[in-house]
């Protein structure tokens, strides 16, 4: 059975925060760390983002609440009775709680009747796991309508209190690059989609042609981590293996880390997966009208462009659609934020092809999806 994306929506907390006001929210670890942050911002090109914390670190939101609000906005523009939704898949990097999963809290916050749920926890590509789970549920006629959401609340981990007093802070007040990088990269928000077994009668739908997702954990160690501390021998010790939660915290186990060198080593492998899809005929680079790629930094985009051009599979840059620089890198929410903005851009017309691409650095995943634009059911 064919599956269609029939509505989309997003929730971004508060007003956009420009680069010069970031430290009002995530605070300052040291002047030197702030200088390094400016370099990271020059590389990623992000100009503004949203934070779900207030300037004093307090918040009225949770990641599940943001996901529910995004899905509320999805339902506000749907042709569908919310009670007919049989399945909900949620995606995030770190839920509010360790137990239970976010999908339960999103379901509760939405006030919908009993339904099937699936909880996807990874990093950026958890969004595509949720999308694929929902698409298969509808394709198999298990449910007529399904909701998918991605949400992140990273800023709460970036406050100075999560770093100061831990082993991660050097004598000169700086953080190691792997602990510092994500503070200047990630931000908050949520977005979601409604999938159904028939297209909209009026307005835009996106037919899901295919979705692929491939893990390369057979060849990469964890590259983005949280909940573990690196040992002298290079291994990762889970926080729960420390003698106490306090000892784990002191070792920096609760900090989000990104091995930046490993990120650049993964890039050719992600592009290799793209080339595989070109060679097997799934992707025709020249027939893609809109390329929505969740790249995390402008510098990574440049490297991708260089490799793809040489291999004759570059999608012309004027067909790339991104909102990274205005909305920030919102992890598992990003690809749905991009799709929602594209659907609302007024630039889509029936028959156009959209390609989604979501690389995940966590332990290396690459996901793609091919969509076709439909208007008024055609």
């Amino acid at each position: 059975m064919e599956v269609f994306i029939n509505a989309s929506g997003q929730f971004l907390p508060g007003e956009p925060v420009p680069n010069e006001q970031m430290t009002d929210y995530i605070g300052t670890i040291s002047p030197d760390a702030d200088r390094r942050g400016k370099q990271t911002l020059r590389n990623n090109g992000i100009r503004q983002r949203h934070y779900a914390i207030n300037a004093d670190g307090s918040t009225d939101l949770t990641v599940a609440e943001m996901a529910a609000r995004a899905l509320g906005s999805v339902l506000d523009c749907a042709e569908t009775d919310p009670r007919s939704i049989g399945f909900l898949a949620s995606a995030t990097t770190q839920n509010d709680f360790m137990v239970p999963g976010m999908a339960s809290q999103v379901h509760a916050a939405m006030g919908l009747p009993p339904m099937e749920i699936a909880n996807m926890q990874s990093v950026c590509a958890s969004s595509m796991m949720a999308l694929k789970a929902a698409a298969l549920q509808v394709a198999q006629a298990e449910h007529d309508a399904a909701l998918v959401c991605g949400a992140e609340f990273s800023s709460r981990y970036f406050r100075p209190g999560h770093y100061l007093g831990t082993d991660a802070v050097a004598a000169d007040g700086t953080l190691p690059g792997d602990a510092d990088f994500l503070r200047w990269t990630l931000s908050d928000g949520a977005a979601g989609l409604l999938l159904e077994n028939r297209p909209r009668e009026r307005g835009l739908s996106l037919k899901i042609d295919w979705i692929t997702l491939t893990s390369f954990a057979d060849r990469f160690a964890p590259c983005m981590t949280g909940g573990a501390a690196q040992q002298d021998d290079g291994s990762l010790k889970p926080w729960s293996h420390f003698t106490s939660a306090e000892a784990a915290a002191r070792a920096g186990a609760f900090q989000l880390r990104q091995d930046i060198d490993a990120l650049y080593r993964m890039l050719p492998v992600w592009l290799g997966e793209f080339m595989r899809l070109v060679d097997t005929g799934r992707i025709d680079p020249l027939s893609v009208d809109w390329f929505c790629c969740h790249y995390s930094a402008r510098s990574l985009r440049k490297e991708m462009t260089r490799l793809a051009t040489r291999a004759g599979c570059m999608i012309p840059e004027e067909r790339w659609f991104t909102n990274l620089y205005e909305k920030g890198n919102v992890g598992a929410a990003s690809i749905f934020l991009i799709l929602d903005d594209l659907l609302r851009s007024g630039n889509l017309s029936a028959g156009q092809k959209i390609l989604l691409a979501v690389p995940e650095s966590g332990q290396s995943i690459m996901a793609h999806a091919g969509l076709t634009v439909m208007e008024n059911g055609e």
Partner: protein
Amino acid sequence: MSASRTIGDAKAHHQAAWRGLSRERIEFESTLVQVPIVKRLLEGNWRAHDYRSLLVNLRQQVIEGSRWISRAASNLSPEHEDLRSMFVRHAVAEHRDFRLLEDNYVAAGGRLEEIQNRPKNIGSEAFSAFMYHTASKPDPLGMLGAMFIIEGLGERMAGEWAALIQSQLDLPDKAVSFLAYHGENDSEHIAMFEHALKLAATSAERTEDIVRHARVVARLYRLQLEELDNV
């Protein structure tokens, strides 16, 4: 067929070959970390013996390299004379490389007779046999795919490995000159290679043949690293 169409096709074949070779190289290089000796190196767990073992095993294959390139050159017909001269030049440039390996071995504490007299490991046997087999065929353009994998490894990994080995084992420069040389010079070889690919990948069949050779050689190269000292 118009001239522009012909040029467009040539570019498409060349790009398809580059794409196919890139895929093979990415798969090969990104999975090398699964090979025990590479894994231990990257994790900082090498012993002095590991480096000497690598040198001995590489030497028996490297000594064959310029010989199968020469044989391939001799089997290139006049249609491919530009490629032939490139092959010959490449063979000349590298035909004494095994001496570097011997010098490195001695500088790393090994005995010259030891590295000179050890037989190939069973992976190198398969690797060399396939290269001579390919080189012996008429117009062996598939060799380019094989050379891309081998030179690519040098360009992208050799320099990094040399630095890791030197720091882990506290060795002088003269003990890692083979890897350091390939780390510094194989990018030139890759540039030359790109030109060769333009000359060779002129049809879908040839492109496929070149990429297929890359795939086979990637597997056999890995095999010789998996079978170190298994003679």
